[in-house]
């Protein structure tokens, strides 16, 4: 094992594109429809202790018949669906890992990407997902608090839709750096004591699966969004037998490793075991969990979370 100066991160900063907010608005509309369709069946991910009645809407062919309000049907003879709004999620907390390892992503090798292609690091996706959660939470009437593992220390709590831009600016002022990741949040679960929904977004590489259980509270929904670079999820292929020098994002260590098929398989086994452990722990304790590549669109992640 050798050491050298700190690695130069390929994507340490967050930059929201001009199409982000329109995409976010469209996502909200899509999810709202899905949510409205699912509110009644009790399968909503954000199931709190109660639901606020908001009214009725006509039944659409193909919808689950269990969503029908049978009393209205009996009175009016027309099918209507009861639309409600969850009441227990007024306070949400989004904890985002901003350690240096979140600056990883983009093309594997040092070759510069094409000028028209932006390097998407893990922090970029984490920020987009967190902002999407914020927008959805505010839309649900919740107060959404952002907690970064490093960077700006003052708390940011958004209650209205226009606060989402403050949220975005906070991310754009943040840079992936240091070695303080979700482990710090895990050590201080009391910071988000009142939150009815807690979103942990990061690469989860500095904590173990059982560590997230510290956030569990009665009536709280816990979401774990694990973001990894593509070459962290699967060992890189097609690099020949010349090997690769891996550089630690959060330290000064580096290691040259040969990349034959056996080595790649060994890595894949290790990372798969780690992810499977995480998945099993979360499933066992009712924690929403998913792992995504930093290359995916944030809509896919949020759509998966709130389906």
């Amino acid at each position: 094992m050798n050491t050298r100066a700190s690695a130069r991160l390929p994507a340490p900063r967050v930059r929201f594109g001009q199409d982000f907010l329109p995409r976010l608005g469209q996502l909200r509309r899509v999810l709202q429809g899905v949510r409205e369709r699912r509110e009644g069946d009790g399968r909503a991910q954000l199931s709190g202790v109660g639901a606020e009645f908001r009214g009725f809407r006509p039944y659409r062919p193909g919808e689950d018949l269990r969503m029908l309000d049978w009393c209205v049907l009996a009175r009016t003879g027309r099918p209507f669906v009861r639309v409600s709004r969850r009441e227990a999620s007024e306070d949400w907390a989004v904890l985002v890992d901003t350690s240096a390892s979140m600056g990883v992503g983009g093309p594997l090798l040092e070759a510069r990407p094409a000028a028209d292609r932006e390097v998407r690091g893990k922090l970029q996706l984490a920020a987009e997902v967190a902002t999407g959660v914020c927008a959805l939470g505010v839309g649900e009437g919740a107060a959404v608090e952002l907690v970064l593992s490093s960077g700006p220390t003052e708390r940011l709590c958004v209650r209205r839709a226009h606060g989402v831009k403050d949220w975005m600016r906070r991310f754009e002022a943040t840079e992936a750096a240091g070695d303080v990741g979700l482990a710090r949040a895990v050590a201080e679960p009391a910071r988000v004591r009142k939150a009815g929904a807690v979103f942990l977004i990061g690469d989860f590489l500095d904590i173990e699966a059982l560590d997230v259980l510290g956030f569990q509270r009665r009536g709280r929904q816990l979401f774990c969004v694990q973001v990894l670079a593509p070459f962290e999820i699967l060992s890189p292929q097609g690099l020949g037998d010349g090997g690769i020098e891996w550089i630690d994002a959060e330290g000064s260590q580096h290691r040259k490793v040969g990349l034959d098929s056996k080595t790649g398989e060994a890595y894949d086994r290790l990372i798969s075991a780690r992810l499977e452990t995480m998945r099993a722990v979360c499933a066992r304790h009712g924690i929403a969990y998913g792992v995504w590549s930093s290359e995916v669109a944030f809509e896919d992640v949020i759509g998966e979370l709130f389906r």
Partner: protein
Amino acid sequence: MSGAIEWARPLWGWSLILPLVLLVWLRLSHRPPSAVTGTLKLWKQVAEQSSPSARVVQRGTPPWVWFCAAALLFGILGLMGPRLHRETPPRRFAVVVDPSPSMDLAYLEQAGYASGGEPTRRDRALERASAWLEANASDRDRVRWVLFGEDPVELSAGIVPESVQRSRRLARTPNWTLFDQPGTLFVTDRKPTGALESAGFAASGGEAVFGTIAVEGRERIDWYAEGWRTIPDGAPARAVVLESSFDPVPEVLERIVAVWADARGIAHPGQGDAEVVLRLRFESGRGGGEFDVQRDGWRARVRGGALEPGAGAEEMNWLAVRDADGAALFSLVRAAPGVIRLAIESMEEPTGDPAHFALSWGRLFDRWCLPPAGVVALQEREAAGPASFQEPAPALPLEPDESSGRPAGAEDLDAWLAGFAAILALFALSLRRSLAR
């Protein structure tokens, strides 16, 4: 200086950066790619658990590349035109020492009389010449010392012949142009007149040295600061000596010697502490006989034999027995400074004008009679000017048969390097092909 390498085209040396660039470029191109990751811990586990091949991550520069770079290197070296100089061959220097009497004078920085303890002008000039030889001649070089009045002597550099200090009172400043050769250094007191093309000189310089400049009969002429003065009866006691291996010496000659000596104020025969300025040495010649000899208008019949040449290069034949064609058969009289050797046992009265006979012998005696000690001509005593030095052209190497060492010269290495570069390049190509299969 042995084995030194010189470059005929050194500018090609800049191209030496090419193989370096090639190696660096290949080194960089073969360096494994690097990537920043957050899963280094996992990769560490992989490397520690996996086969050794997984740990071998950086393959060295392919061997054919090394051969290629070496070929390039040798090719460039060949283009630079290296010349391997073998040992510098021994050279021959020459030191020609001015034999003129002025060299015996004291070296004075101000005109005056010598007190007796000063170094001579010769000493000063030799000192300068020796310093130059020490700096420029190696132990393998030879130095030829040309000392007038004796045969040249060749010594190793750093050795000065003892006879260099011998006074040659009758000698004159030589014609330097006869010795104008590369590596030749004149040791003199006055800067040589005329342009020297190859030779150099070490001139001591020195101010005027007052003293006796001539002896005329019984008078002595002294030069001093204000001029010169004649001192009647001031001439030092001088003598001419007749030495003979047989008795009596020819009366005719004894008589002419006496007349000449009386005219010059020289005692005959030598008396007391008189300084012998001329010796007439009668010897028995080889193959004696009677011969008719003639010179300067006189003719005489003599009994004598062939006179063997004596030691010393200055000795000259003065009277010889000649054949009908006038060619000299052998010498009867030979003369050197201060000494006249005669292989004449008897001589009849010469025929012809007696004055011619007396004048002829008188000139002989005058020519070879030594001046008394301390008597130096005025032109010799005058100031020699400032000290000066001129380095000679580089000495020439000895002829191959004179030097026992290897032949001198430079050996071109271009062809060797080019050939070696070609072999390396071919080897690199074949190696690359075999690796590609």
